[in-house]
């Protein structure tokens, strides 16, 4: 099962429509959290919001995560060591208030196991890829360093 995440703030029809079309073409089993009560899909299962145990279950069962380039989704995939595809939201398409998701995608483009896609064609290719590996952020040093600095700031 592939788990797709639009996040908790805004719908992401460009991603969801692409997933629906691709699932139809290839018979993929996709569960999508859409943040979009008005979205009706043909080939994928959808929930507007998934929280708590339901969200955790979906993440655990997924063999791959597809998401907007939201830090929450990325951190969760990293924590659970899942392969991940991210599609950044674009401000010029009204998908977010600014282009910080493009910046996020640029920042993490080289992380093993993380694939950045910008359109349906690239998304389809990534979904069908065979050689997927879990995301791997080698960040422990950076995290420890920030925690220490915040601890000192907090006093």
């Amino acid at each position, binding site marked *: 099962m592939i788990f797709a995440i639009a996040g*908790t703030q805004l719908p992401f029809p460009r991603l969801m429509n692409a997933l629906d079309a691709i699932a139809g073409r290839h018979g993929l089993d996709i569960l999508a959290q859409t943040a979009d009560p008005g979205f009706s899909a043909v080939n994928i299962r959808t929930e507007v919001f998934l929280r*708590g145990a339901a969200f955790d279950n979906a993440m655990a069962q997924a063999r791959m995560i597809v998401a907007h380039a*939201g830090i*929450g989704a*990325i951190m969760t995939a990293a924590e659970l060591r899942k392969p991940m595809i991210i599609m950044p939201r674009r401000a010029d398409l009204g998908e977010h208030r600014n282009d910080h998701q493009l910046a996020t995608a640029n920042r993490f483009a080289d992380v093993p196991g993380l694939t950045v896609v910008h359109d349906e064609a690239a998304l389809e290719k990534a979904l069908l890829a065979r050689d997927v590996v879990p995301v791997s952020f080698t960040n422990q040093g950076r995290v420890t360093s*920030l925690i220490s600095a915040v601890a000192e700031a907090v006093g």
Partner: protein
Amino acid sequence: MLCVSSGGGHWQQLMALRPAWEGKQVSYACTAPVNQDKFQLPNFFQIPDCNRNTMKKIFSSIPAYVRVFRRTRPSVVVSTGALPGLFFIAMGRMTGARTVWVESIANSERLSLSGKVASLVADKFFVQAEHLADGKRRIYAGSVL
């Protein structure tokens, strides 16, 4: 101590930083409901959300923020953003609390709007991208990813 954030990634970053205040008495406030089974938070307040596009919501949310602040009377306020967190940093500043802002790692190329304001108000301001540090108020000391 009061730790405040918006939902989603902001909250997850706050949780990743939890070891920084281990052993202290802490209350938490978030704009989204939080999984209490997962996070085991002693004092949790859900607060209304707002952003720069929702002027009306900003004004109607402020009384709730003030209520939580008065209830918790923090001597330290930490926030990972976004706009709701900024209000708490401002209240902390006004009451002489120590205030710490950690700009979201989502803001890799430029600061968020609330971050820009927070950088002028908070006692300590951390960025999570090296090139956003300015050697003065904006400090790079690592990142959650």
